């Protein structure tokens, strides 16, 4: 008896094929090539159909096929895409599956960050945070495009939401404030993405040359500013910001809980010590 089950995760689509009940069951988890949320021709004239056909249809397809082959039979088989990324990043010494997994995630994130007829300005809390952290929307755009242009080699440019932490893992922020939750422009090499730094990505633009070479040749700055002016789906970015903020708030609550529990534990120990000291009965002193 064969059964086909499919489970849909937040960022990737994973299909579990052929669960054989009569024989020894072998579950094979396979990632699929998720299409962009618009037809391949929809981003013309800023990104041509030919670019999308190659970028999604060949490059991203290659990553999916390679990843499926790589995780077969390993412990990564069956994990969600984000889990595979974090596990295979291996704290900076990445396993072979990292490049493919991260590139799949990055590309899905990229297509969803754009929409036909997008662009313009963000609104609401996103705009407020951008203006707070960069001065003005124009300054933010300039820094974003400059970061993209200055990046040497292949990689990605990101807008991320950075939660309340100092940059050193074991240090504690002595005076936490609302301003620590910042919007940050970051760039990453090759397949790396800010998930491995525990940032919350909000928007990405692919600056691998295959993303823009057919349409813009070497003019990377023009490519990035065109996307920002004409294609960015700010509503998607805003909703990602809400998710990031609630995630950060939950983390802050967990931190507080943990600290409170630690303090209670420490204060209990102190009582024990003083009790030990006071329990010695002066009348039983050996001096007498």
């Amino acid at each position, binding site marked *: 008896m064969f059964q086909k089950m499919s489970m849909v995760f937040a960022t990737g689509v994973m299909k579990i094929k052929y669960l054989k009940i009569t024989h020894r069951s072998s579950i094979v988890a396979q990632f699929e090539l998720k299409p962009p949320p618009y037809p391949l021709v929809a981003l013309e004239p800023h990104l041509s159909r030919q670019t999308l056909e190659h970028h999604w249809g060949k490059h991203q397809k290659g990553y999916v096929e390679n990843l499926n082959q790589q995780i077969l039979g390993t412990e990564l088989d069956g994990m969600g895409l984000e889990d595979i990324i974090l596990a295979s990043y291996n704290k900076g010494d990445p396993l072979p599956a990292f490049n493919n997994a991260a590139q799949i995630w990055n590309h899905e994130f990229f297509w969803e960050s754009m929409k036909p007829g997008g662009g313009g300005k963000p609104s609401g809390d996103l705009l407020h945070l951008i203006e707070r952290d960069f001065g003005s929307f124009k300054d933010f755009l300039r820094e974003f495009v400059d970061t993209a242009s200055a990046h*040497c080699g292949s990689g990605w440019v990101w807008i991320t939401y950075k939660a309340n932490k100092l940059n050193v893992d074991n240090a504690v922020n002595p005076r936490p404030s609302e301003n620590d939750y910042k919007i940050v422009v970051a760039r990453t090499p*090759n397949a790396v993405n800010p998930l491995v730094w525990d940032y919350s990505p909000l928007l990405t633009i692919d600056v691998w040359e295959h993303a823009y070479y057919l349409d813009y040749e070497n003019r990377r700055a023009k490519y990035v500013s065109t996307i920002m002016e004409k294609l960015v789906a700010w509503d998607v970015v805003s909703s990602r910001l809400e998710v990031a903020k609630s995630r950060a708030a939950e983390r802050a609550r967990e931190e507080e809980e943990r600290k409170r529990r630690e303090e209670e534990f420490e204060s209990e120990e102190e009582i024990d010590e003083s009790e030990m000291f006071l329990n010695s009965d002066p009348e039983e002193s050996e001096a007498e």
Partner: protein
Amino acid sequence: MMAMASQLLLLPNLRFHSNSQSAPRVISNPICRPLKLSKFQKRYKQSLRDSRVLAFYGRKTPPYKLDALEPYMSQRTLEVHWGKHHQEYVDGLNKQLENSPLYGHTLEELVKVTYNNGNPMPEFNNAAQLWNHDFFWESMQPDGGKSPWGGVLQQIEKDFGSLEKFRDEFVEAALSLFGSGWVWLVLKTKEKKFAVMKTSNAVNPLVGGEIPIIGLDMWEHAYYLDYKDDREKYVMTFLNHLVSWHTVALRMIRAEAFVNLGEPKIPVA
């Protein structure tokens, strides 16, 4: 330009013909005539007095016309690759070095110095890419490829086993490179043999002290217009139709001045 101007100043009565002059002036006694400088000469004499020596880097022109590598590498690719990317590296480097203590190095020295043993300075990317691309244009020729011969073929067969094995290793290195980078055939100075090497982004074998013999650009801008995502076809085409074995032979001759490839001649007592 400035040397030319100073030469002109040594010939006192040579008028510099500018468009603003209406009629030529008559010179009666050339030797006794006092020195009268035109506006052009005055400007250059002034600038010579307070000129500083500035080192500027430039890029080499490919030793063939930009359409000479068709149909394997299109003219448009060369126009953008050499004309835009390579030029950007030059301009970027010269801008970075404007008031820099790094002035005075040759390009090769600059690459090694700015690599800083693995902690590269900001100038490294531009300097190294400038050198890499000079090397790349010279590694190719129209009607290239086919097989090496003579000493080069002997060395390849000695170090790889056969020409096929070298080609397989080269293609495999190129295809397994993730992101931007270069693939090289190098002469390893310590081991005194050929090896295939792949490097990321702007890194090249000079920083490791090896002698590069062939360089192939695997940045996407090198092949995307012609081959799009078909990297294997690009590398195979390079090996079959573009690589200049003449240049390889010349580089080997030069390399032998630094690395002794022959058996040591031990005199028999």
